[in-house]
């Protein structure tokens, strides 16, 4: 309902924006000439049109709009798919979806194998008597095969069975074109209506018919299933052909394998007989019919398909236009979406999944997306105090006394403090997949800036630093960060440490280079001015070179965030137990397209948020950029 209204509103927005845009161009006599960049200014209505188009395309090809307007369509198409599926064993015997009649294809295959066998026989070292006998057997086999295609030898009961199949199909065609078919109400309707709705569960589409229209096809599919099974049982094994086959079998079974000419040739003979037997079994299957004999079934099926297609009526149009880019297929137990309806999840389902997962009690794999936990402040501060501080205090850690008591001395207490083992106030600490990803990026970035900027400035100012550190930076910078990942995750572990170090490496190189560019780009006259105003070396770095490099440094941070974000997700996919990349990787293994798309959108939004924050910071802190 909401999706339907939204879909219509969005289409109206697109049309409105286009009309407004065209009118604007017509009324704007001052519109600049082509090539003038001011022509690209403004145009919020095109933003509306652009965003709406994306949403419309998404709603349309994910079948969300189709579902909103035709909520029962998928269930009905599922019944149609069942009917098609049950007719498939018959259909595949005829050149309807395949290129060749199946009998023709089987004949060609068997002829091919017989030819190959003849060629093989010519290559053997058998004695003349054997060779002649085997050649004769093979020739007879070919005759028998050809004989199956002859109408004259076919058993009349087989022909009758085929005609009966054709009649049953025709009868079903007549039935299905009757609006009242099957005439009795659906006994399972109550149960069918209680199935989860389309898209609610991983079953996707409720398999039992929920409308009378669907029930008609469902019922027809049951009948068709019976016809198909009977059709599959029919074999071209009349008396004439059976006699020939028995004769052939007696001949090759009677062939005496001569084992006096050495092991190799004996084995070759055995192999030859085996091959003959294999081809014989195929011929014995009796799946090859004279061309004319199956014609009635083919005609009946074509007629039936025409009838059932026209019976679908508007459902076919809904399938083509409302559910584009894919089909609904029936499996043994359930029906599923294929094509864009499957891999492009519906926006409403994605949103539902997100809302469900955003609930901290649900989360993903037991970890919320973004929430908080009350933790003692000691366990937070513990990170800041290195544990070895306790080791520096003179003396030994306390030992237990004879009564088995342990009296803590100062050293113990400092150690307890450094490891956060003391009672302290509870404070809310953010947790969850999103927080973990954010924290890793920010930590990597923090260390990258902390070390990269000073080194970059130093390299911009000192010949020694530039020459000494340049090879190091330039050698490792072009290596794709993910190439490091296996090594670094092995050394530092798959948890936060490894990822933060990886991101630090990414951010560090970028920050060094941007800070260096900034320092190198300082105008000499500014440094001269600072000198003659009495600034010391340190003051010049702090008050002139650093602020002068700020535009480059901030741009560097902006780039670094983007690259870190990309690297992090890939690193989380490689290994780890939390983070957005981890969520996506697990969803990938389970082919859960909704969660995959949700993480993609989440990553995009967070990346956009980073960039907007950086743009805001850049705008606020360096308004002078490019104006010096």
């Amino acid at each position: 309902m909401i999706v339907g209204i939204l879909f219509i509103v969005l289409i109206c927005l697109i049309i409105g924006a286009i009309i407004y845009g065209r009118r604007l161009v017509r009324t704007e006599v001052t519109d600049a000439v082509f090539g003038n960049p001011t022509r690209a200014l403004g145009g919020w209505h095109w933003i509306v049109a652009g965003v709406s188009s994306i949403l419309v395309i998404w709603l349309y090809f994910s079948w969300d709009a189709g579902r909103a307007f035709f909520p029962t369509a998928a269930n009905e198409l599922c019944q149609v798919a069942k009917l098609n599926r049950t007719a498939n064993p018959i259909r595949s015997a005829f050149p309807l979806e395949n290129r060749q009649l199946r009998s023709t294809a089987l004949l060609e295959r068997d002829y091919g194998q017989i030819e190959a066998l003849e060629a093989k026989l010519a290559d053997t070292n058998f004695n003349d008597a054997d060779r002649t006998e085997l050649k004769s057997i093979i020739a007879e086999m070919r005759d028998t095969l050809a004989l199956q295609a002859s109408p004259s030898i076919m058993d009349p009961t087989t022909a009758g069975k085929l005609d009966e199949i054709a009649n049953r199909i025709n009868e079903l065609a007549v039935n299905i074109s009757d609006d009242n078919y099957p005439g009795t109400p659906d006994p399972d309707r109550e149960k069918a209506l209680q199935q989860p709705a389309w898209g609610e569960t991983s079953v996707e589409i409720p398999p039992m018919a929920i409308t009378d229209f669907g029930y008609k096809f469902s019922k027809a599919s049951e009948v068709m299933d019976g016809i198909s099974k009977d059709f599959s049982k029919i074999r071209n094994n009349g008396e004439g052909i059976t006699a020939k086959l028995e004769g052939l079998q007696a001949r090759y079974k009677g062939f005496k394998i001569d084992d006096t000419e050495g092991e190799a040739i004996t084995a070759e003979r055995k192999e030859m007989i085996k091959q003959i037997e294999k081809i014989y079994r195929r011929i014995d299957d009796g799946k090859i019919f004279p061309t004319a004999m199956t014609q009635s079934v083919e005609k009946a099926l074509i007629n039936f398909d025409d009838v059932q297609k026209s019976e679908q009526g508007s459902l076919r149009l809904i399938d083509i236009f409302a559910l584009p880019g894919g089909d609904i297929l029936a499996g043994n137990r359930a029906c599923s979406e294929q094509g864009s309806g499957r891999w492009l999840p519906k926006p409403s389902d994605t949103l539902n999944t997100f809302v469900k997962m955003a609930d901290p009690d649900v989360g993903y794999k037991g970890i919320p997306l973004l929430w908080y936990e009350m933790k003692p402040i000691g366990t937070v501060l513990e990170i800041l105090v290195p544990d070895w501080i306790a080791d520096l205090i003179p003396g030994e850690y306390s030992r237990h006394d004879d009564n088995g008591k342990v009296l803590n001395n100062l050293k113990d207490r400092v150690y307890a403090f450094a490891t956060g083992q003391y009672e302290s106030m509870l404070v809310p600490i953010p947790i969850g997949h999103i927080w973990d990803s954010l924290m890793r990026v920010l930590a990597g970035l923090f260390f990258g800036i902390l070390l990269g900027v000073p080194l970059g400035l130093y390299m911009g100012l000192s010949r020694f630093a530039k020459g000494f550190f340049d090879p190091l930076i330039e050698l490792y910078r072009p290596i794709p960060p993910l190439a490091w990942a296996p090594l670094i995750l092995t050394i530092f572990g798959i948890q936060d440490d490894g990822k933060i170090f990886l991101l630090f490496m990414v951010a560090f190189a970028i920050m060094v280079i941007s800070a260096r560019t900034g320092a190198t780009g300082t105008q000499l006259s500014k440094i001269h001015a600072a000198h003659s105003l009495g600034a010391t070396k340190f003051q010049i770095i702090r008050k002139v070179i650093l602020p002068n490099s700020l535009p480059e440094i901030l741009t560097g941070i902006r780039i670094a965030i983007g690259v870190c974000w990309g690297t992090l997700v890939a690193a989380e996919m490689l290994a780890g137990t939390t983070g957005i990349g981890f969520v996506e990787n697990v969803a990938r293994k389970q082919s859960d397209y909704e969660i995959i798309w949700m993480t993609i959108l989440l990553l995009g939004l967070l990346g956009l948020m980073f960039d907007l924050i950086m743009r805001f910071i850049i705008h606020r802190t360096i308004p002078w950029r490019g104006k010096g």
Partner: protein
Amino acid sequence: MSDLIADKVNMVFNTKGGGIVHALKDVSFTLKEGELLSVLGPSGCGKTTLLNIIAGFNRPTGGAFYLGNEEISGPGVNRGMVFQQGALFEWLTVAENVNFGLRMKGSDKKETAKKVEEWLDIVGLQGFGDTPTYQLSGGMQQRVALARCLINDPDLILMDEPLGALDALTREKMQTLVLKIWKETGKTIMIITHSVEEALLLGERLFVMAPRPGRLHKEYNLPFAEQGLTTDPREIKNSDLFTETREEILTMIWDMEEEIMGKSNAA
């Protein structure tokens, strides 16, 4: 006594091609305290080199400069500098630019603020203290640069084509301002310029330099700077003595330029 004494200053650069350039050769002069000197010359005659050495940014390869009997060996607050392009710190406001020197010294904040007000008054930028410098026009930026230099109370003010990037009208106003500051503060000022008119107008003394090797070619003692304090500069410019001197110097510089062109053509 803080006179500026040049004692046989020589400056030789090695070029990348392995040759040498004699940027300054045996430059000797004495600039008395309170004098206003303008230096003129064709491009490449070593004017800026001379100024950079006095400022202490470069060391001469021979000879030395003395300011108040002390040899100049590096940049110092006793020599203020004004550059062609302001060289303002665009991330700071006008007031923060002006008080930069005092802040670096760690002077008392209240006193600094008072001084900044005074100097902004003198250069005609009252009320602009909190304006970011990148929003100012070229002329205003040069006023900030002047105030920034003067607030440090240097003995010697060095100006490297300070008005070169300004439009004609602003330039005239700024010339008057420089004269006013010179008279009111009694500072020694050395101005390098490309413009002959400006050199005449702002030079109590005027050096014309010659290139290859860079050296002092001719010295003038001129009355126009004194007159400029009381008379309209346009009147001075129209006086016979002014036009005569201007033509003489122009011819001189043209000849030098032509000589250089001839030299390079022959080579």
